[in-house]
């Protein structure tokens, strides 16, 4: 991923002066941290965030993410999606200009709250450091512990019974901790779309999300959309929607329609190309049309 910096051919994109965007994303604890960094280092009034500028900068930074490596890549992308949504909402005429209707309000609230939490955790760190300068008694001779068995128990059956009434099987995501720990990988979605389209010429977007519910649904939706956009940009698929909010269809582009060189200068291209190639290899399928524009040298 270090190969291509966001040189981003299109001149429309904001290129930071000092290059502060070229920071190690691992340094940031999450999307809110990154957003705050962008806002605070540029002396932006947090109550009047220039949403399109910030969105652009955020997207540039997020393009740096190597999804396979960064723990929280999914969350960065989810934030990217909601920034884009806010940006779109800003363009819509609002009923009145009262502040409550500002699409940015919730984001601002979250950012301020997060900043406060960060300040508190810095204070905690200082307290930890201070406490670390004091030492307790190092050696305490072990003495026999009282036998728990001899300890009178004050608990009544009602307490146990009440606890029994409260027992509930946790939701799937609650016990499958790995599910939430590991972000939804975009390459999986790319692979899902490609393999689905191998068996048919088109597929509904909603069908790609079938069977996914609960808290995960949103993230899966975002990742599937991003994967679709990526494949569209690479001209492996195209998308069609008849009317706003109607079903979104993904169509397979026929062989030969694929654009060999398609935007290969873009940094993202290389990253995704690599992962898509890996995916194709493991599944043992290498359709000529689906050959990613990627050289094995990297």
């Amino acid at each position: 991923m270090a190969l291509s910096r966001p040189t981003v051919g299109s001149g429309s994109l904001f290129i930071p002066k000092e290059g502060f965007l070229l920071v190690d994303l691992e340094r940031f604890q999450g999307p809110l941290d990154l957003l705050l960094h962008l806002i605070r280092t540029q002396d932006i009034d947090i109550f009047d965030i220039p949403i399109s500028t910030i969105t652009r900068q955020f997207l540039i930074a997020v393009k740096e993410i190597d999804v396979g490596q960064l723990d929280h890549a999914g969350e960065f992308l989810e934030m990217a999606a909601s920034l884009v949504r806010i940006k779109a909402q800003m363009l819509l005429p609002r009923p009145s200009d009262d502040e409550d209707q500002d699409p940015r309000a919730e984001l601002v609230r979250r950012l301020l709250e997060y900043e406060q939490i960060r300040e508190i955790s810095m204070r905690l760190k200082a307290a930890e450091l201070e406490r670390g300068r004091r030492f307790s008694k190092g050696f305490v001779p072990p003495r026999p512990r009282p036998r728990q068995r001899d300890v009178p128990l004050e608990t009544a059956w009602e307490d146990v019974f009440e606890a029994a009434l409260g027992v509930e099987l946790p939701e799937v995501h609650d016990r499958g901790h790995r599910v939430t720990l590991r972000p939804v990988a975009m390459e999986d979605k790319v692979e899902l779309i490609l393999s689905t389209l191998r068996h048919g010429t088109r597929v509904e977007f909603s069908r790609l999300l079938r069977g996914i519910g609960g808290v995960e649904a949103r993230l899966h939706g975002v990742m599937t959309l991003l994967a679709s956009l990526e494949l569209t940009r690479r001209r492996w698929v195209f998308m069609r929607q008849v009317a706003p909010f109607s079903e979104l269809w993904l169509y397979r582009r026929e062989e030969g329609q694929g654009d060999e060189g398609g935007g290969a200068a873009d940094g993202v291209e290389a990253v995704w190309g690599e992962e898509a190639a890996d995916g194709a290899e493991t599944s043992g399928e290498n359709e000529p049309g689906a050959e990613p524009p990627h050289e094995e040298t990297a």
Partner: protein
Amino acid sequence: MNVAQIVEAVLFASDAPLKAEEIARADESLDEDRVEEALDLLRRFYDESERAFQVVEVAEGFQLLTRPDFATYLERFDTVPRPSRLSGPALETLAIVAYRQPIGRIEVEYIRGVSSSGVLRSLQDRGLIEVVGRGEGLGRPLLYGTTARFLEHFGFASLDELPRPEELPIVLRDRIPLGDDEDEGEDPGLQPQLDLGGGEGGE
């Protein structure tokens, strides 16, 4: 044996803070008040005789700890256990739990913007937070709160010693355009929950 001696022996033989009423269990002749008196006496004696340790109020109890000035000498010894340091994510998560307890995982994740089950788990394993109940709603989510060990780790006497939001440079009140919260219904800043901490302090 006078009271101060007994109290000193008990403090000296413990590796964790003890509440006055716990210390009082050492002898029938003791009660909380007499223990507190003895603690005062010891505190003054250690100060006047310039002991290397003092009586420190931690986690709603009392503990003998070395004065901070001796840290540089002590850090050279392998036989002196090193204090542990928490990671950035752990501190951030603890800050949220401390101020918003009882709080569920989903809310923690909404505030942090990143998934947090791993870090919550590890804080639980270190005894810094614990499950304090279950919330309403779908799946009756587990709610977390801080433990006595949390206070101990940071050297706080009680939750009251946490910085109050109004002391922080970033002020949440007043200026926030509290809009129609789109999905998360409840999210009333940090303010109200602090009372909770205060109430527990128990004076």
